[in-house]
């Protein structure tokens, strides 16, 4: 077994985790075949009912007279559900079997606070405010190699889902993650010595993680022939994700966010451009991945769904059940997955606390299936990833056949 210099220095003071997690525990997959999990968090609580429309439920139309996707304009999915036409590209992915939707999915916790519900999902611990590290971080702690490159947040700050004891990287863009300016090589050598002395400290560990990964990330080819949506931060992040994955440098999980989904007013007009951005970015990412699509699973999630009834401002307020999405070459796509094939219904008597779409698929079951069927983690090892929750194959929603 070999330790990197960073692992050694990182652990010289208080941080002993690197020693507890030697790299030989890593799975022995060859480069280029490691599975990768990409998470896209729609911050603000996306409206699932106007994304994947239950056209077969008459209460959809009676509950949303002003903001409904007009009957007949939806893109047909499976006869019962239709897709909002703003999300045009995923229909192609759906038909190709590389994309599926999970409806009436979300968190069992009834919170309607964005802040709490996002934390609960990022921590995979609904209702539990004592859990403060992210589920992806706990996954890396179990299955990662202790290498910072294993987890990447494409943002300034580490994503909450990736925050925690296992090292990871956070940077806004690949091209921005480089030591620039005069005397870059000399400065780096000097800084390396200086921060080598600070191993085990907050600053030292971040610098050592950065320096270990700088050369690796610098080898990534960021050019792509695929056109991503112009000016889209999500598109840019997915473009960088594709570049990281294709370069086989050891990235296992990537966390991305896209904000702006809190449409209390003018939902139709606001959802359209975001839907186009999300769908266009997913489509470009799909095409860009090419041969690597099979080892990449992308999960799209949001903290909760929105109310069934429209409000007085042509929008919808905070609700409960929503839509998740999964994209990958290996999934059993081309389906709208509802728990046991039973749509919980929008009739007043069928609603969660009389107002909202029920959650029949717990988001943790989706996460668990992704970790098991895609990332290869045994269900029996998932205890630390899902505190207070017992993952079970019998509850897997069925992303894979």
């Amino acid at each position: 077994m070999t330790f990197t210099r960073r692992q050694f220095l990182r652990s010289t003071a208080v941080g002993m985790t690197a020693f507890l997690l030697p790299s030989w525990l890593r799975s022995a997959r060859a480069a280029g075949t490691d599975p990768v999990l990409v998470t896209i968090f729609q911050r603000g609580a996306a409206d699932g009912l106007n994304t994947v429309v239950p056209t077969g439920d008459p209460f959809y139309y009676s509950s949303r007279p002003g903001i409904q996707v007009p009957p007949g304009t939806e893109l047909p999915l499976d006869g019962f559900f239709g897709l909002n036409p703003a999300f045009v590209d995923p229909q192609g992915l759906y038909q190709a079997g590389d994309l599926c939707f999970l409806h009436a999915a979300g968190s069992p916790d009834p919170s309607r606070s964005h802040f709490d519900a996002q934390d609960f999902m990022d921590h995979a611990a609904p209702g539990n405010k004592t859990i403060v590290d992210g589920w992806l971080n706990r996954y890396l702690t179990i299955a990662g190699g202790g290498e910072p490159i294993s987890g990447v947040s494409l943002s300034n700050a580490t994503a909450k889902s990736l925050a925690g004891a296992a090292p990871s990287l956070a940077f806004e863009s690949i091209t921005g993650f480089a030591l620039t300016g005069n005397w870059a090589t000399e400065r780096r050598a000097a800084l390396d010595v200086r921060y080598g002395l600070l191993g085990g400290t907050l600053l030292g560990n971040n610098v050592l993680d950065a320096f270990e990964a700088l050369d690796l990330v610098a080898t990534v080819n960021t050019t792509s022939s695929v056109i991503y949506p112009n000016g889209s931060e999500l598109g840019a992040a997915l473009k960088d994700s594709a570049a990281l994955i294709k370069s086989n440098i050891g990235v296992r999980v990537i966390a991305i966010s896209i904000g702006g989904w809190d449409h209390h007013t003018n939902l139709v007009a606001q959802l359209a451009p975001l839907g186009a951005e999300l769908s266009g970015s997913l489509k470009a990412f799909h095409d860009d991945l090419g041969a690597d699509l099979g080892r990449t699973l992308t999960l799209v999630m949001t903290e909760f769904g929105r109310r069934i009834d429209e409000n007085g401002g042509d929008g919808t307020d905070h609700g409960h059940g929503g839509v998740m999405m999964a994209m990958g070459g290996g999934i059993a796509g081309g389906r709208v997955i509802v728990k046991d094939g039973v749509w919980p219904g929008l009739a007043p008597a069928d609603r969660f606390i009389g107002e909202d779409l029920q959650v029949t698929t717990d988001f943790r079951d989706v996460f668990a299936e992704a970790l098991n069927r895609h990332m290869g983690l045994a269900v029996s090892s998932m205890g630390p990833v899902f505190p207070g929750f017992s993952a079970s194959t019998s509850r897997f929603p069925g992303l894979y056949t």
Partner: protein
Amino acid sequence: VGRALPCGGLATPFAAGAAPQTSDQQGCINDVNNYGVRVAKSQNRADVDRVKNAGRGLAFRLGVPPQPQTAQACLTNDVRGRVAKDTVKLQDRETRSCLAEPGQLPGFGYSGSATAAAAARAAGLGIVAGLFGPDLDASIVLESADHDGARCQSDVLRYAGDLFYATWKEALTAKKNVLKGSARLAGSGPVASATDLEAELIAVVRWKENYNNADGFEFNATFHDQGAKTVVGVQIPPNGGIQDGLTMIDFLAHHPSTASFISRKLVIRFVAEIPPQRLVDEAAGVFLGSGGDIRAVLETILLSPEFLTSPQYRHAKVRRPLVFYAGLARAYGADPAQLNSNTLRNRVADMGEDLYDAGPPTGYPDVSAFWLSPGTAVKRFNDAEATSRGSYGFTFTYPVSGGTSAQVIDGLASYLFLAPISSETPARESDSSTCFRSRSRRSGCSRRRPSCSPAPSS
């Protein structure tokens, strides 16, 4: 005397006409109003930028292609995204204050944050149209042609915006008070329309325009609840007036939880993000024993072994973005007069902590995971280097120039430590560095230089 009159006069029509708004409903109305005004302010600030840039002929700053790069088009281009950002903040605030819980929505025709934002943007744009007419490009005075005229144009727009903003702030304060007054009025008559409310408020604002509260505190007996009440377990007798507030302040100030809370915040601030409980408890004890003497509490913290000597808490704090850049400015001896503070602010914003921009009411979190990552660490190195070359508005004089390497080291040391270093230190420094390089990776040579090897006996 005159001040109390219109407020009292205002309360009467609402006693008859307005449905009382609960404190949650009031919170919603006040928040949407306050954040809406911020949108208007951003729109105005952006408009000022536009007029300036157009006056300087900087068309490229007026829009990002394919947006048209004319001043008129730019009014709605929102190039820097400030208006959009504040609109999103308004939405966030609405979500929290109006829509998170049932019962927050006001009892009259609530139009929602989008309407408020649109009105705010329109108000900002209205100022431009009022001052410059329908075609902004035709009215722009070019700085190259008439420097003072161009400056006058952007200043007038800015001050018009300030006046608008101040007027609205005043209006909202009055509205807040009215809502508070109406909240405890029993019974429900016909619902007052929002237009009525605005009309009454404008009357108050006009009257209050010249009022300037010098001490920043105002007790308004008219709207105070004079009944007996129990607040967090404290029984407050009737007719206490201003004494009610003082009673509560006393109670909270002497509550043990306050001592622990403030001590904990201070230990996090000065010692470690996961604060040592022993020190928190000791500091809280001093807080309570001294009647909340912050100097005594700080003395306890700053003279504690945790702060002074404990290796466990060494390097346990990392500068936040604002402090980092302020530190850069000071370390380089940047000339405050030359410092372009907006450039500096943009750097802080780029690191994720723009000034006065924290979403939650508790401000930016006080743990480094929220501002420190490998990516921001590299950004810091890059910015420190760029700053040393005069980027970001820093102008400074390099403290040492010329001489031998020893003279340069002495000069830098004098600059950094305010005194020359002793003749032994440079030798020791180079010796320990050698040790570090040769031994650390394999044998675990201590990460702290002094214990690495004995100093040469010279």
